[in-house]
């Protein structure tokens, strides 16, 4: 620790210093130096100054002697100033300051011990060399000298730069800056970018320094601040307010400060960015600003920033906000003509800048060191392109595309071999010429200097399908190219087009040329038509058939067919048959020949097709069945070794008449085939004839019938019941016509079950009832069937269906009732007859034995109603009225009442009516005379005989039992009634009891009506008082019903007649008509009497 000399001396220095202080105080001279302070600026010399608190300091001089301990040296200086410059030493320095008067006499002397630690190191105050503003970038450029030459060795310097703005010198920022001092003067520079345009207000800068000398033991301090340098803001003329920054281009998202500068007399009203107002910051008088954060991309003409001033001044600026250009994407270059290279790229994100701010593209090539400026309208083009010239003898190009705008730049590079980037122009002037049936000559033009490459051209030839023909050819300069397409089909419309590329290094096909359509020429048909012939069964003519050639075989449009008949090279006859006929008839004239058919078009004739007209006789031709395959018919035939030139299968494709002949030929070794034809239809029977071609003619070998697809029969078999017995039915049916079978018939199915007519038909088959019986008849020769074990006299339902492989046909059903069993019938008749006879005998015997009792009971000589059981039935009905039995035969005193007075008619009747119930018990009945005992009434309650003085007129006439004397009125009418009554009724009414009402009602009617039959009918029977009509009608209370009651009063209501007490109500009730219509009780019913 004490290695350091200065440190070792430290206690000694301290002691000396204290001593010197004491000493100086001891001198007591007022001008003695005090407070020695020492500072170094350059670490070389120390400047010490002191205080001399003397009032008469003028004329005084100071002698300063300083002694260094290490290295030991001593020096004295005389000066009039109160400061001295001493060298800096590592150790401490003794300084003796002697104050001398003008005459050189020492007045006082002070000794200071100055240790190094007490020396301050304060660098020289730095001086700003220049402060220059860059208004466009808001940047201040600061320059100053680091005065490094002051120091002998390298040192670390720290600088503090303070930026102030406005007149009020507000600190904007304080920045530290470090540098190295290299013992020589260096101009340091530093830039600072403001966030506010420099025009807006004044900006000032000051600077100070601190040097960090680590070996310096004393205090190190910052230098003084340099003098301030100021860049003033922009001043404006009156009336010419301006807004800064002007037309600035900034990236999206920038934070901006805009200031409005105006005259001090003017007054700011508002300041807006776009349409939005922002709070105005007042910088100073006539200077205001707004801050806008995070600006959005502007439109093409920029975002306006303006301030509105009073009085009526507007000032503004435009801010263009956008993006720096993207790196050009997908840069690709190719040549079409070897004259220029076209480079294309995608610009990426739009910069949103236009005018002179939009992106500039420069395409530069390294080998040739040429640049091309691309003129691109960024707004109008999605994909940009730029052309670069092709230089002769240069094959490799190294491109760099630079995109730049005021906000930045980006670039992309591409390295290409021009021969590998050939995208030829679209072939032009494409022509096709055809002058044969199979060849076409093509020609086209491609612009460009293509001498250094070979071309590969693709010719597309299409009609129904398309094929590509590739041709390679040497390139030429702006030349026509030719090619030939051969192996075309005659008489075919072809569409041609062509495209080309570089053949060696394929890059891209050119666009297809325009299409050319042309038809190849016709040529003679490729082969003769398929032919067949059929001999007319009658006559000697032969019909020759041929099939039309396929379009690919016809090689043109077939105009006609030439049919000829040759016999050993001699043409017997020939005819030309125009299309579309496909058959002709030849008269053989008794001799066979070889028929040949030639198809002809405008290009020529086909080779002839030949067929012999000879039909060899055939015997024992069998007919066999073909197999349906669903989409065709499988036929097979027996191989015939004598067949040398194949087999021909012929059929009528229409399936029925008229026959349209179709045929197919097969080689000699074939024995089967599947025939397919669009004409075949399912369910139609086709007849095939197999002919063998032999050296001397055709022979029919076999007949085959078949279906393409078998279907269920179309109709049901017709069947009838031939015979029925009590336990069997014989059914007979008929064959189904072949055309309705729609397949080979395999059998019949007979269903039968008990069933009545009227049961639903489908259920019969579907229910699968246990009684359902099925008989399958597979023997097609069988035409009848007996069904056994049936029940007698039972209805059966029969259902017959035919079936093929295709399924069951429709059903035909019948209902049959089996015959009755005759024994059963006989038994069924005999037993009841026997039983009846036995019962009759027994009854007769019983009746005979008990005849006395019967007579007493049923036919007494004098009937006793009390005992008569036959007459007691009403008791059950009218049980409530126990007092009233059937006939209460009160002692009758006939003829005891005589009417001697004549009463006026109407009132009398009314009286009678009303009073009759009252007087019922007082006046004995006279209707039934006990003496008329022969009269018996059985079937109903006898009428109550309660007439007072009225009795029925017939009684009078009968004379037998009439004991009533009639009143004059009644007698007036009665005879008329009687005349029209049947004798029986007369007897009945006259003999039996008379209803009370009968006469009165009649009397009433008679007053208003002439006596009619109806009226008379009513008089004949009993008149119940109850409103019988009301029992039938829904509304018994209506007056009409009451009235109709009178008209249609029914007979035989014994109850009403018996209920005497209610039948004739008291007069009180009668007077009130309303009473008649109230309620629905029996009582009321009885009270409902006719009011009239």
């Amino acid at each position, binding site marked *: 620790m004490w290695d350091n000399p200065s440190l070792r001396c430290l206690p000694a220095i301290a002691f000396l210093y204290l001593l010197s202080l004491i000493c100086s105080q001891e001198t007591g001279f007022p001008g003695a130096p005090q407070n020695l302070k020492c500072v170094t600026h350059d670490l070389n010399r120390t400047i010490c100054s002191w205080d001399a608190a003397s009032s008469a300091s003028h004329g005084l001089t100071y002698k300063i002697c300083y002694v260094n301990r290490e290295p030991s040296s001593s020096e004295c200086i005389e000066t009039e100033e109160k400061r001295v410059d001493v060298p800096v030493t590592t150790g401490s320095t003794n300084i003796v300051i002697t104050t001398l008067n003008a005459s050189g006499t020492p007045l006082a002397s002070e000794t200071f011990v100055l240790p190094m630690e007490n020396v301050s190191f304060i660098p020289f105050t730095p001086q700003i060399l220049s402060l220059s503003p860059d208004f466009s970038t808001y940047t201040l450029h600061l320059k100053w000298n680091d005065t490094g030459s002051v120091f002998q060795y390298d040192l670390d310097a720290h600088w503090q730069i303070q930026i102030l703005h406005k007149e009020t010198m507000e600190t904007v920022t304080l920045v530290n800056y470090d540098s190295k001092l290299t013992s020589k003067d260096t101009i340091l520079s530093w830039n600072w970018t403001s966030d506010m345009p420099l025009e807006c207000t004044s900006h000032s800068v000051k600077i100070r320094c601190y040097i960090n000398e680590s070996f310096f033991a004393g205090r190190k301090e910052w230098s003084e601040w340099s003098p301030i340098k100021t860049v003033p803001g922009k001043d404006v003329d009156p009336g010419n307010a301006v807004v800064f920054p*002007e*037309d600035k281009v900034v990236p999206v998202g920038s934070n901006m400060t805009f200031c409005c500068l105006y005259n001090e007399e003017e007054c700011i009203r508002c300041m807006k960015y776009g349409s939005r107002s922002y709070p105005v910051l007042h910088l100073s008088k006539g200077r205001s600003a707004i801050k806008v954060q995070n600006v959005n991309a502007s439109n*093409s*003409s920029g975002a*306006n*920033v303006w301030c509105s001033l009073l009085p009526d001044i*507007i000032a503004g*600026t435009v801010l263009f906000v956008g993006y720096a250009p993207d790196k050009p994407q997908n840069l690709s270059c190719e040549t079409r003509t070897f004259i220029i290279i076209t480079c294309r790229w995608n610009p990426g994100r739009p910069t949103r800048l236009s*005018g002179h701010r939009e992106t500039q593209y420069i395409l530069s090539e390294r080998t040739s060191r040429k640049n091309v400026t691309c003129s691109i309208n960024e707004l109008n083009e999605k994909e940009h392109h730029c052309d670069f010239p092709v230089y002769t003898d240069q094959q490799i190009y190294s491109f760099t595309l630079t995109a730049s705008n005021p906000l930045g730049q980006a670039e992309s590079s591409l390295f290409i071999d021009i021969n590998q980037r050939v995208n030829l122009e679209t072939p032009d002037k494409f022509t096709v010429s055809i002058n044969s049936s199979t060849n076409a000559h093509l020609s086209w033009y491609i612009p460009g200097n293509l001498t250094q490459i070979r071309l590969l051209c693709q010719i597309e030839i299409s009609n129904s399908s398309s094929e590509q023909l590739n041709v390679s050819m040497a390139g030429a300069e702006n030349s026509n190219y030719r090619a030939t397409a051969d192996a075309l089909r005659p008489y075919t419309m072809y569409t041609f087009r062509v495209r080309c590329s570089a053949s060696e290094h394929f890059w891209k096909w050119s666009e297809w040329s325009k299409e050319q359509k042309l038809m190849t020429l016709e040529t003679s048909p490729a082969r003769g038509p398929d032919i067949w012939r059929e001999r007319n069964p009658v006559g000697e003519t032969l019909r020759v058939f041929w099939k039309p050639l396929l379009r690919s075989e016809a090689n043109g449009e077939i105009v006609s067919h030439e049919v000829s008949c040759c016999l050993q090279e001699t043409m017997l006859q020939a005819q030309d048959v125009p299309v579309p006929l496909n058959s002709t008839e030849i008269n053989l004239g008794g001799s066979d020949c070889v028929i040949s058919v030639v198809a002809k078009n405008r290009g020529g004739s086909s080779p002839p097709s030949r067929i012999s007209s000879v039909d060899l006789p055939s015997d024992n031709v069998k007919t066999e069945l073909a197999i349906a395959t669903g989409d065709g018919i499988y036929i097979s035939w027996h191989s015939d070794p004598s067949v040398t030139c194949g087999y021909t299968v012929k059929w009528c494709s229409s399936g029925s008449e008229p026959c349209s002949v179709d045929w197919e030929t097969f080689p000699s070794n074939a024995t089967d085939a599947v025939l397919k034809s669009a004409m075949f239809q399912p369910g139609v029977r086709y007849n095939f004839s197999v002919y063998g071609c032999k050296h001397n003619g055709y022979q029919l070998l076999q007949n085959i019938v078949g279906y393409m697809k078998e279907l269920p029969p179309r109709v049901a078999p017709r069947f009838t019941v031939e015979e029925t017995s009590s336990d069997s039915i014989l059914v007979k049916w008929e064959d189904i016509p072949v055309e309705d079978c729609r397949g080979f018939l395999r059998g019949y199915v007979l269903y039968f079950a008990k069933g009545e007519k009227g049961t639903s038909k489908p259920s019969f088959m579907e229910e699968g009832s246990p009684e359902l019986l099925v008989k399958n008849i597979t023997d097609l020769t069988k035409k009848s069937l007996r069904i056994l074990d049936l029940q007698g006299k039972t209805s059966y339902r029969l259902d017959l269906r035919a079936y093929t492989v295709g399924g069951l046909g429709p059903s035909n059903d019948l209902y049959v009732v089996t015959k009755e069993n005759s024994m059963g019938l006989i038994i069924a008749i005999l037993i009841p007859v026997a039983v009846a006879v036995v019962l009759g005998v027994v009854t007769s015997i019983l009746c005979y034995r008990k005849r006395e009792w019967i007579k007493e009971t049923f036919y007494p000589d004098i009937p006793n109603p009390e005992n008569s059981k036959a007459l007691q039935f009403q008791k059950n009905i009218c049980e409530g009225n126990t007092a009233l039995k059937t006939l209460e035969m009160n002692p009758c005193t006939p003829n005891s009442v005589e009417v001697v007075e004549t009463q006026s008619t109407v009132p009398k009747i009314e009286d009678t009516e009303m009073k009759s119930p009252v007087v019922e018990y007082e006046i004995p009945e006279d209707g039934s005379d006990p003496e008329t005992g022969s009269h018996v009434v059985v079937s109903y309650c006898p009428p109550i005989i309660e007439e007072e003085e009225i009795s029925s007129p017939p009684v009078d006439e009968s004379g037998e039992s009439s004991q009533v004397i009639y009143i004059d009125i009644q007698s007036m009418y009665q005879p008329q009634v009687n005349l029209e009554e049947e004798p029986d009724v007369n007897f009945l009414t006259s003999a039996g009891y008379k209803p009370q009402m009968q006469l009165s009602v009649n009397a009433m009617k008679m007053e208003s009506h002439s006596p009619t039959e109806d009226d008379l009918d009513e008089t004949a029977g009993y008149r119940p008082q109850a409103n019988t009509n009301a029992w039938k009608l829904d509304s018994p209370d209506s007056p009409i019903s009451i009235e109709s009651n009178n008209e249609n009063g029914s007979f035989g209501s014994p109850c009403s007649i018996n209920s005497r007490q209610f039948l004739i109500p008291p007069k009180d009730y009668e007077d009130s008509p309303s009473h008649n219509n109230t309620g629905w009780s029996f009582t009321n019913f009885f009270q409902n009497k006719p009011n009239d």
Partner: protein
Amino acid sequence: MEVLTVDRANLLSSASNSSSQQELATKVEQTHRLTILLKHCSEQLLAEYVRHQGEPFSSPDFQPPPMAVPGLPSPSVSPEAWLALGDGEQLRHLAMAYATLPRLLASVQQQQNELNPSASELHQQLEAAVRQCRGLAGNLEGIMGALGVSSPPPPSPSPSSLPTSAFLAKLSGYHVCRQHRDWARRSHDTLVLLSAKYPL
């Protein structure tokens, strides 16, 4: 677009005889029709112009204080004062204005090419306005010749001081378009009076 070329040699210094009267009336009527078109087009142009300049120009209540356009006489005289000027004076003012307007409108178009390169409708309308103004200037010259009104001195080719900032360009363009509209109205007023005085 109707542009009338006027052969000054054939014009009479005074409209004395009837054929020249008829000729004058025809000329006045044609010019009148041109001013109707111009009036309509100039209003459309102003609307289209402000539509592309952003706020505050596109704001419906944008009424900046009048700004003198260098070289262009201001039509700021009140209508009464204008009518009091008399035919000759009115025509002289119109002729002076339309001698300057085409150049100003062309420079507006130049500025808009830079500011709004994609506003094709605006460019078309500006081009049309230039042609219409030139046509009207020719017509006015013809009428003045027929009426014996002396033509104003040709406008001094003032150094085309294009505005320094984009905002000033927008603002000066606005004033040119607005004055174009005002002059079109004024010329229409004048020609209405003239066509009444010189009926066909």
